[in-house]
Every structure is written in C-alpha cells, then in structure tokens.
C-alpha cells in the first residue's frame, strides 16, 4: 500500500539556521508533490508544488527538491525565524485529476 513517511520527531533549530524536512514515499509514482504548513487549530496552508519532472523549486526562503529515484522530497527553510514554527505536511498526487495523499507531518520549532 502507498506509504508516506515524515519524521515524527520535532525538529528543533536555532533562528537563522536552515531547516531541512524530509518526505519519503513508497509504493507510489506521484506526478507531483506539495508541501503545506499547519498551525495549531488551523487548516493546512499550501506552500509549494513540485512536479515529477522538476528537480527543485524555490519560493522566497523556501526550497523544495524532488528525487523520484530516491522517492524523496526535501523541504528547506533558509534563515529560519521563530514564526516558521509549525507542522509541515507533504502530500502526493497522481497524474490527471486525483485526490491528495498526506503524510503525518513534521513539527518544526525555531528558537530565538
């Protein structure tokens, strides 16, 4: 069955450092992968989409890589700030119209 794995342990980093979150998947050939941010008591907020034929995508301080050989995506936040503290979810989608499959998310804690 399809499986998406994100680090269950919280990632603690210091302000100004680069945070790197991992999303691994098995038994899946996604056409695209998305990253979301979720704050406590709120719905997820879409951040970035990367397609299977793209290696890297950037948006401001965010960078996402997608390696379909390793079946892995890395999500980087450079110059992290305490306001970046949240849970980050990856989600996979198939070609054509399809619903998303979400990972459990990784909590990021950025300390001043």
């Amino acid at each position, binding site marked *: 069955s399809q499986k998406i794995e994100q680090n269950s342990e919280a990632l603690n980093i210091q302000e100004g450092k680069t945070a790197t979150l991992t999303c691994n998947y098995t038994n899946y050939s996604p056409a695209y992968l998305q990253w979301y941010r979720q704050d406590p008591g709120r*719905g997820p907020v879409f951040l970035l989409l990367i397609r299977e034929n793209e290696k890297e995508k950037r948006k401001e301080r965010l960078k996402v890589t997608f390696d379909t050989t390793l079946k892995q995506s890395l999500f980087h936040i450079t110059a992290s700030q305490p306001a970046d503290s949240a849970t980050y979810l990856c989600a996979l989608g198939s070609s054509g119209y399809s619903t998303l499959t979400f990972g*459990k998310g990784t909590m990021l804690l950025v300390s001043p």
Partner: protein
Amino acid sequence: SAVISQKPSRDICQRGTSLTIQCQVDSQVTMMFWYRQQPGQSLTLIATANQGSEATYESGFVIDKFPISRPNLTFSTLTVSNMSPEDSSIYLCSVDGGRASNYGYTFGSGTRLTVV
C-alpha cells in the same frame, strides 16, 4: 485563492447524536473534499463531493455514517452521525485551488469535534 468559511469551529457532543459541519466557499468549485485528522495522524480523505451527484466515499467511510450534501457549487455539509468517542477528531473541508493557486488545496479552518 478561494476562501472557505467552515463552522462550527469546535463542538462537544453526546454519543449517539449527530453533528452537521458546514463549508461555504467564496467562489464556485466543482469538487469539495472532506478530510478527517485524528491526533498525531495524517489527513485522511473521507469523501469527494460533486454538485448534483452523490459523494464518492473512500474505503472505510460510508454514507450512512458521514452523509454529505452539495446543493450548489459554493456550499457543502458533512454530517457525523450516531457519534461515538472514536469520532473525536478534526474535520476539514477543502477545494482544489486550480491553476490560479498553482494547484494547491485551500482548507477550511477545521471543526474540532469531541464526543463524550
């Protein structure tokens, strides 16, 4: 991107009762999605709601337990029926933002349900 108003934001309900959750979108959308997020778990898709047709349910979810209405292109409801403590969860509606939103999904703020 679309804006979704979801209510109620939270509720505490007695077992055996039902709760209806509403989602209003500020634009017309073809499909609306209903998710459940249990503590420490990923978002799990309950069903996809199309206007004018019956909802499509995912494995493990049935219409009798989670009836869905989709009367028009901007509104949908999810009812959690005959509730038990195992139904305690966060319920979220969402829509596909389409090309304008780089195909990201927009979510409502969620309904935190506690069944006692």
